[in-house]
Protein backbone atom coordinates (compact mmCIF):
# COMPACT_ATOMS: atom_id res chain seq x y z
CA UNK A 1 0.00 0.00 0.00
CA UNK A 2 1.76 3.14 -1.26
CA UNK A 3 0.58 6.37 -2.83
CA UNK A 4 3.70 7.18 -4.85
CA UNK A 5 3.62 5.81 -8.41
CA UNK A 6 7.41 6.11 -8.59
CA UNK A 7 7.89 3.84 -5.59
CA UNK A 8 5.18 1.35 -6.62
CA UNK A 9 6.70 1.09 -10.13
CA UNK A 10 10.11 0.26 -8.66
CA UNK A 11 8.77 -2.26 -6.16
CA UNK A 12 6.39 -3.84 -8.69
CA UNK A 13 9.36 -4.39 -11.02
CA UNK A 14 11.44 -5.87 -8.21
CA UNK A 15 8.77 -8.32 -7.06
CA UNK A 16 7.23 -9.29 -10.43
CA UNK A 17 10.66 -10.01 -11.93
CA UNK A 18 11.33 -12.35 -9.02
CA UNK A 19 8.14 -14.38 -9.37
CA UNK A 20 5.67 -12.58 -7.13
CA UNK A 21 2.17 -11.36 -7.98
CA UNK A 22 1.73 -7.71 -7.00
CA UNK A 23 -1.38 -5.61 -6.30
CA UNK A 24 -1.18 -1.93 -5.43
CA UNK A 25 -3.54 0.30 -3.47
CA UNK A 26 -3.00 4.01 -2.85
CA UNK A 27 -5.72 4.48 -0.22
CA UNK A 28 -6.99 2.55 2.78
CA UNK A 29 -10.40 1.95 1.19
CA UNK A 30 -8.81 0.64 -2.04
CA UNK A 31 -6.59 -1.66 0.04
CA UNK A 32 -9.58 -3.01 1.96
CA UNK A 33 -11.35 -3.75 -1.35
CA UNK A 34 -8.25 -5.50 -2.71
CA UNK A 35 -7.92 -7.65 0.42
CA UNK A 36 -11.60 -8.56 0.23
CA UNK A 37 -11.32 -9.59 -3.44
CA UNK A 38 -7.98 -11.41 -3.35
CA UNK A 39 -6.33 -11.81 0.06
CA UNK A 40 -2.59 -11.21 -0.24
CA UNK A 41 0.08 -13.31 1.46
CA UNK A 42 1.89 -10.17 2.57
CA UNK A 43 1.15 -6.46 2.72
CA UNK A 44 3.92 -3.84 2.53
CA UNK A 45 2.36 -0.82 4.17
CA UNK A 46 3.60 2.74 3.74
CA UNK A 47 2.59 4.66 6.84
CA UNK A 48 2.06 8.04 5.16
CA UNK A 49 -0.63 7.99 2.47
CA UNK A 50 -1.47 11.60 1.78
CA UNK A 51 -3.53 12.56 4.80
CA UNK A 52 -4.38 8.95 5.73
CA UNK A 53 -2.63 6.81 8.31
CA UNK A 54 -1.64 3.49 6.69
CA UNK A 55 -2.19 1.64 9.97
CA UNK A 56 -5.94 2.35 9.64
CA UNK A 57 -5.97 -0.50 7.09
CA UNK A 58 -5.60 -3.10 9.83
CA UNK A 59 -8.40 -1.67 11.95
CA UNK A 60 -10.71 -1.39 8.92
CA UNK A 61 -10.03 -4.98 7.85
CA UNK A 62 -10.95 -6.18 11.35
CA UNK A 63 -14.05 -3.97 11.39
CA UNK A 64 -15.11 -5.49 8.05
CA UNK A 65 -14.64 -9.02 9.43
CA UNK A 66 -11.82 -9.72 7.01
CA UNK A 67 -8.66 -11.67 7.80
CA UNK A 68 -5.69 -9.40 8.42
CA UNK A 69 -2.79 -10.53 6.20
CA UNK A 70 0.80 -10.52 7.40
CA UNK A 71 1.68 -6.82 7.27
CA UNK A 72 5.05 -5.10 7.30
CA UNK A 73 5.14 -1.35 7.89
CA UNK A 74 7.58 0.85 5.94
CA UNK A 75 8.52 4.11 7.60
CA UNK A 76 11.08 6.82 6.97
CA UNK A 77 12.13 7.01 10.62
CA UNK A 78 14.07 4.55 12.77
CA UNK A 79 11.95 5.62 15.71
CA UNK A 80 11.00 3.31 18.61
CA UNK A 81 7.70 5.13 19.20
CA UNK A 82 6.58 4.58 15.58
CA UNK A 83 7.83 1.00 15.73
CA UNK A 84 5.85 0.31 18.91
CA UNK A 85 2.72 1.85 17.34
CA UNK A 86 3.02 -0.35 14.26
CA UNK A 87 3.60 -3.54 16.21
CA UNK A 88 0.71 -2.72 18.56
CA UNK A 89 -1.54 -2.22 15.51
CA UNK A 90 -0.69 -5.73 14.31
CA UNK A 91 2.31 -5.36 11.98
CA UNK A 92 4.77 -8.24 12.10
CA UNK A 93 7.79 -6.02 11.39
CA UNK A 94 8.71 -2.41 10.75
CA UNK A 95 11.28 -1.53 8.06
CA UNK A 96 13.06 1.82 7.77
CA UNK A 97 13.10 3.26 4.25
CA UNK A 98 14.99 3.12 2.03
CA UNK A 99 15.36 -0.65 2.34
CA UNK A 100 18.09 -2.07 0.08
CA UNK A 101 16.38 -4.09 -2.69
CA UNK A 102 18.39 -7.24 -1.98
CA UNK A 103 17.49 -7.17 1.70
CA UNK A 104 13.81 -6.40 1.03
CA UNK A 105 13.54 -9.24 -1.46
CA UNK A 106 15.16 -11.71 0.93
CA UNK A 107 12.86 -10.74 3.81
CA UNK A 108 9.72 -10.77 1.64
CA UNK A 109 10.58 -14.26 0.34
CA UNK A 110 10.95 -15.47 3.93
CA UNK A 111 7.67 -13.89 5.06
CA UNK A 112 5.73 -15.18 2.05
CA UNK A 113 7.18 -18.69 2.51
CA UNK A 114 6.18 -18.72 6.15
CA UNK A 115 2.63 -17.59 5.41
CA UNK A 116 1.68 -21.04 4.15
CA UNK A 117 1.22 -23.15 0.98
CA UNK A 118 -0.19 -21.88 -2.27
CA UNK A 119 1.68 -18.63 -2.09
CA UNK A 120 3.03 -16.80 -5.14
Amino acid at each position, binding site marked *: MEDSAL*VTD*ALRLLFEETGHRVSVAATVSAAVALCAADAPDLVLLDL*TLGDEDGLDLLAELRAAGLAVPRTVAMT*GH*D*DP*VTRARCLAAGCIEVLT*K*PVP*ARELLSQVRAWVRSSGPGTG
Partner: protein
Amino acid sequence: MTNLDATPPLAERLGALEAQQVEAARLIADLQARDALKTEFLANISHDLRTPLTAMITHAEILRDGILGDLSERQRESVQAIINGGRQLLDSIGEILTYARGAAGQLTVSRTEFSVAEVVAKVSTLNESLVARKGLALEVDVPDDLPPLQADREKFAHVLSNLLGNAIDFTPAAGRVWVVARAVAGDGGCTLLVEVGDSGIGIAPEHHDLVFREFAQVDSSASRRHHGTGLGLTIARKLVELHGGRIWLESRLGEGSRFFFTIPYVADS
Protein backbone atom coordinates in the same frame (compact mmCIF):
# COMPACT_ATOMS: atom_id res chain seq x y z
CA MET B 1 8.58 67.82 40.14
CA THR B 2 6.31 66.07 37.62
CA ASN B 3 4.19 68.10 35.21
CA LEU B 4 0.90 66.27 35.73
CA ASP B 5 -0.82 68.32 33.01
CA ALA B 6 1.36 66.50 30.38
CA THR B 7 0.25 62.96 31.51
CA PRO B 8 -2.47 61.51 29.23
CA PRO B 9 -5.69 60.78 31.01
CA LEU B 10 -5.90 57.30 32.55
CA ALA B 11 -8.67 56.14 30.22
CA GLU B 12 -6.55 57.06 27.19
CA ARG B 13 -3.56 55.15 28.53
CA LEU B 14 -5.71 52.10 29.31
CA GLY B 15 -7.14 52.28 25.78
CA ALA B 16 -3.63 52.32 24.29
CA LEU B 17 -2.59 49.34 26.44
CA GLU B 18 -5.66 47.37 25.35
CA ALA B 19 -4.93 48.15 21.70
CA GLN B 20 -1.34 46.91 22.20
CA GLN B 21 -2.64 43.71 23.79
CA VAL B 22 -5.00 43.07 20.87
CA GLU B 23 -2.15 43.67 18.41
CA ALA B 24 0.15 41.36 20.39
CA ALA B 25 -2.50 38.62 20.38
CA ARG B 26 -2.92 39.05 16.62
CA LEU B 27 0.85 38.80 16.06
CA ILE B 28 1.05 35.65 18.21
CA ALA B 29 -1.78 34.03 16.24
CA ASP B 30 -0.07 35.01 12.98
CA LEU B 31 3.27 33.56 14.15
CA GLN B 32 1.58 30.33 15.26
CA ALA B 33 -0.11 30.00 11.86
CA ARG B 34 3.23 30.56 10.07
CA ASP B 35 4.84 28.00 12.37
CA ALA B 36 2.20 25.44 11.47
CA LEU B 37 2.77 26.19 7.76
CA LYS B 38 6.53 25.71 8.23
CA THR B 39 5.98 22.35 9.95
CA GLU B 40 3.69 21.19 7.15
CA PHE B 41 6.13 22.44 4.50
CA LEU B 42 9.07 20.62 6.08
CA ALA B 43 7.09 17.37 6.34
CA ASN B 44 5.90 17.61 2.72
CA ILE B 45 9.27 18.60 1.28
CA SER B 46 10.92 15.73 3.15
CA HIS B 47 8.48 13.24 1.62
CA ASP B 48 8.62 14.86 -1.85
CA LEU B 49 12.43 14.83 -1.98
CA ARG B 50 12.97 11.39 -0.50
CA THR B 51 10.29 9.48 -2.39
CA PRO B 52 11.61 9.84 -5.99
CA LEU B 53 15.17 9.35 -4.76
CA THR B 54 14.19 6.14 -3.01
CA ALA B 55 12.52 4.91 -6.20
CA MET B 56 15.66 5.74 -8.25
CA ILE B 57 17.88 3.85 -5.81
CA THR B 58 15.57 0.83 -5.93
CA HIS B 59 15.65 0.76 -9.76
CA ALA B 60 19.45 1.01 -9.69
CA GLU B 61 19.66 -1.83 -7.16
CA ILE B 62 17.41 -3.97 -9.37
CA LEU B 63 19.86 -3.42 -12.23
CA ARG B 64 22.94 -3.97 -10.06
CA ASP B 65 21.64 -7.24 -8.62
CA GLY B 66 21.07 -8.69 -12.11
CA ILE B 67 17.30 -9.07 -11.65
CA LEU B 68 16.72 -7.82 -15.21
CA GLY B 69 19.73 -9.64 -16.63
CA ASP B 70 23.46 -9.80 -16.01
CA LEU B 71 25.59 -6.70 -16.21
CA SER B 72 29.22 -6.42 -17.16
CA GLU B 73 31.65 -5.49 -14.39
CA ARG B 74 31.91 -1.92 -15.69
CA GLN B 75 28.12 -1.64 -15.92
CA ARG B 76 27.76 -2.89 -12.36
CA GLU B 77 30.34 -0.34 -11.15
CA SER B 78 28.48 2.41 -12.95
CA VAL B 79 25.16 1.43 -11.42
CA GLN B 80 26.77 1.16 -7.97
CA ALA B 81 28.00 4.72 -8.44
CA ILE B 82 24.37 5.79 -9.05
CA ILE B 83 23.34 4.04 -5.82
CA ASN B 84 26.18 5.60 -3.83
CA GLY B 85 25.33 9.05 -5.18
CA GLY B 86 21.66 8.55 -4.42
CA ARG B 87 22.33 7.48 -0.84
CA GLN B 88 24.69 10.41 -0.36
CA LEU B 89 21.97 12.74 -1.63
CA LEU B 90 19.47 11.18 0.77
CA ASP B 91 21.89 11.81 3.65
CA SER B 92 22.38 15.42 2.58
CA ILE B 93 18.61 15.98 2.28
CA GLY B 94 18.22 14.51 5.75
CA GLU B 95 20.86 16.88 7.12
CA ILE B 96 19.34 19.95 5.50
CA LEU B 97 15.86 19.11 6.78
CA THR B 98 17.14 18.41 10.29
CA TYR B 99 18.97 21.75 10.22
CA ALA B 100 15.82 23.52 8.99
CA ARG B 101 13.73 21.91 11.75
CA GLY B 102 16.35 22.93 14.30
CA ALA B 103 16.37 26.51 13.01
CA ALA B 104 12.56 26.56 13.17
CA GLY B 105 12.68 25.33 16.77
CA GLN B 106 10.85 22.16 15.75
CA LEU B 107 13.31 19.53 16.80
CA THR B 108 12.03 17.52 19.75
CA VAL B 109 13.49 14.78 21.88
CA SER B 110 11.60 11.50 22.10
CA ARG B 111 13.23 9.61 24.97
CA THR B 112 13.32 5.84 25.24
CA GLU B 113 15.73 3.64 27.16
CA PHE B 114 18.35 1.89 25.04
CA SER B 115 21.73 0.24 25.18
CA VAL B 116 24.55 2.58 24.17
CA ALA B 117 26.70 -0.43 23.19
CA GLU B 118 24.00 -1.60 20.79
CA VAL B 119 23.76 1.75 19.00
CA VAL B 120 27.56 2.11 18.86
CA ALA B 121 27.79 -1.40 17.37
CA LYS B 122 25.12 -0.62 14.76
CA VAL B 123 26.75 2.67 13.70
CA SER B 124 30.17 0.96 13.57
CA THR B 125 28.77 -1.82 11.38
CA LEU B 126 27.30 0.72 8.95
CA ASN B 127 30.79 2.17 8.49
CA GLU B 128 32.58 -1.19 8.27
CA SER B 129 33.08 -1.23 4.50
CA LEU B 130 34.56 2.29 4.42
CA VAL B 131 36.85 1.45 7.34
CA ALA B 132 38.01 -1.69 5.53
CA ARG B 133 38.50 0.15 2.23
CA LYS B 134 40.83 2.66 3.92
CA GLY B 135 42.60 -0.02 5.96
CA LEU B 136 41.72 1.77 9.22
CA ALA B 137 41.65 0.20 12.66
CA LEU B 138 38.29 0.89 14.33
CA GLU B 139 38.41 0.40 18.09
CA VAL B 140 35.23 0.34 20.16
CA ASP B 141 35.40 0.53 23.96
CA VAL B 142 31.94 0.47 25.56
CA PRO B 143 31.73 -1.42 28.89
CA ASP B 144 29.11 -4.18 29.19
CA ASP B 145 27.85 -2.68 32.45
CA LEU B 146 27.28 0.83 31.06
CA PRO B 147 23.81 1.90 32.27
CA PRO B 148 21.13 2.14 29.56
CA LEU B 149 20.58 5.69 28.34
CA GLN B 150 17.24 7.53 28.33
CA ALA B 151 17.48 9.65 25.21
CA ASP B 152 16.24 10.00 21.65
CA ARG B 153 17.78 6.90 20.11
CA GLU B 154 17.60 8.15 16.51
CA LYS B 155 19.22 11.48 17.37
CA PHE B 156 21.91 9.83 19.50
CA ALA B 157 22.74 7.53 16.57
CA HIS B 158 22.79 10.55 14.24
CA VAL B 159 25.38 12.37 16.40
CA LEU B 160 27.54 9.27 16.70
CA SER B 161 27.27 8.56 12.98
CA ASN B 162 28.28 12.11 12.10
CA LEU B 163 31.33 12.09 14.39
CA LEU B 164 32.45 8.62 13.32
CA GLY B 165 31.91 9.47 9.65
CA ASN B 166 34.10 12.58 10.02
CA ALA B 167 36.79 10.61 11.89
CA ILE B 168 36.92 8.06 9.07
CA ASP B 169 36.84 10.74 6.35
CA PHE B 170 39.70 12.76 7.80
CA THR B 171 41.99 9.87 8.68
CA PRO B 172 44.43 8.69 6.00
CA ALA B 173 44.77 5.01 5.11
CA ALA B 174 46.12 2.66 7.82
CA GLY B 175 45.17 5.08 10.60
CA ARG B 176 43.10 4.59 13.75
CA VAL B 177 39.61 5.68 14.74
CA TRP B 178 37.97 4.90 18.03
CA VAL B 179 34.76 5.21 20.04
CA VAL B 180 34.82 5.17 23.83
CA ALA B 181 31.82 5.55 26.15
CA ARG B 182 31.80 5.93 29.92
CA ALA B 183 29.30 6.85 32.64
CA VAL B 184 30.75 9.66 34.70
CA ALA B 185 29.44 10.57 38.15
CA GLY B 186 29.36 14.24 39.09
CA ASP B 187 27.65 16.80 41.32
CA GLY B 188 24.64 17.01 39.01
CA GLY B 189 24.23 13.25 38.72
CA CYS B 190 25.47 10.69 36.24
CA THR B 191 26.44 11.66 32.68
CA LEU B 192 27.27 9.62 29.61
CA LEU B 193 30.57 10.75 28.09
CA VAL B 194 31.33 9.61 24.53
CA GLU B 195 34.65 10.16 22.77
CA VAL B 196 35.09 9.70 19.03
CA GLY B 197 38.75 10.03 18.10
CA ASP B 198 41.05 9.58 15.15
CA SER B 199 44.72 9.67 14.23
CA GLY B 200 43.91 11.85 11.23
CA ILE B 201 44.84 15.28 9.96
CA GLY B 202 43.71 17.18 13.04
CA ILE B 203 42.21 20.66 13.38
CA ALA B 204 44.14 23.78 14.38
CA PRO B 205 42.91 25.25 17.70
CA GLU B 206 41.89 28.55 16.04
CA HIS B 207 39.37 26.54 13.95
CA HIS B 208 37.78 24.62 16.83
CA ASP B 209 34.79 26.98 17.06
CA LEU B 210 34.48 27.27 13.28
CA VAL B 211 33.85 23.55 12.74
CA PHE B 212 30.56 23.76 14.66
CA ARG B 213 29.28 26.69 12.59
CA GLU B 214 26.78 26.27 9.73
CA PHE B 215 28.25 25.65 6.27
CA ALA B 216 31.83 25.96 7.57
CA GLN B 217 34.49 23.58 6.33
CA VAL B 218 38.05 24.19 7.43
CA ASP B 219 40.00 25.10 4.31
CA SER B 220 42.64 22.49 3.75
CA SER B 221 43.46 20.33 0.76
CA ALA B 222 42.17 17.26 2.58
CA SER B 223 38.87 18.85 3.57
CA ARG B 224 38.17 19.87 -0.04
CA ARG B 225 37.85 16.17 -0.84
CA HIS B 226 35.30 15.82 1.96
CA HIS B 227 31.69 15.69 0.82
CA GLY B 228 28.81 17.04 2.83
CA THR B 229 26.58 20.00 3.48
CA GLY B 230 28.79 21.58 6.16
CA LEU B 231 25.89 21.16 8.58
CA GLY B 232 26.88 17.90 10.26
CA LEU B 233 28.61 19.26 13.34
CA THR B 234 26.11 22.14 13.69
CA ILE B 235 23.34 19.55 13.81
CA ALA B 236 25.32 17.30 16.15
CA ARG B 237 25.74 20.20 18.57
CA LYS B 238 22.03 21.04 18.36
CA LEU B 239 20.99 17.44 19.03
CA VAL B 240 23.38 17.08 21.97
CA GLU B 241 22.25 20.39 23.48
CA LEU B 242 18.59 19.33 23.07
CA HIS B 243 19.44 16.56 25.51
CA GLY B 244 21.05 19.01 27.94
CA GLY B 245 24.52 17.86 26.93
CA ARG B 246 27.70 19.46 25.64
CA ILE B 247 30.01 18.78 22.67
CA TRP B 248 33.60 19.88 22.22
CA LEU B 249 36.87 18.80 20.68
CA GLU B 250 40.58 18.47 21.43
CA SER B 251 42.82 18.57 18.40
CA ARG B 252 45.96 19.98 16.86
CA LEU B 253 46.89 20.10 13.18
CA GLY B 254 48.63 16.86 12.23
CA GLU B 255 47.89 15.24 15.59
CA GLY B 256 44.45 13.71 15.13
CA SER B 257 41.19 14.78 16.76
CA ARG B 258 39.11 13.77 19.74
CA PHE B 259 35.45 14.82 19.75
CA PHE B 260 33.60 14.50 23.06
CA PHE B 261 29.92 14.80 23.86
CA THR B 262 27.92 14.31 27.02
CA ILE B 263 24.31 13.36 27.66
CA PRO B 264 23.06 13.53 31.24
CA TYR B 265 21.36 10.41 32.53
CA VAL B 266 17.78 11.10 33.57
CA ALA B 267 17.42 10.70 37.33
CA ASP B 268 14.95 7.99 38.39
CA SER B 269 11.59 9.52 39.34
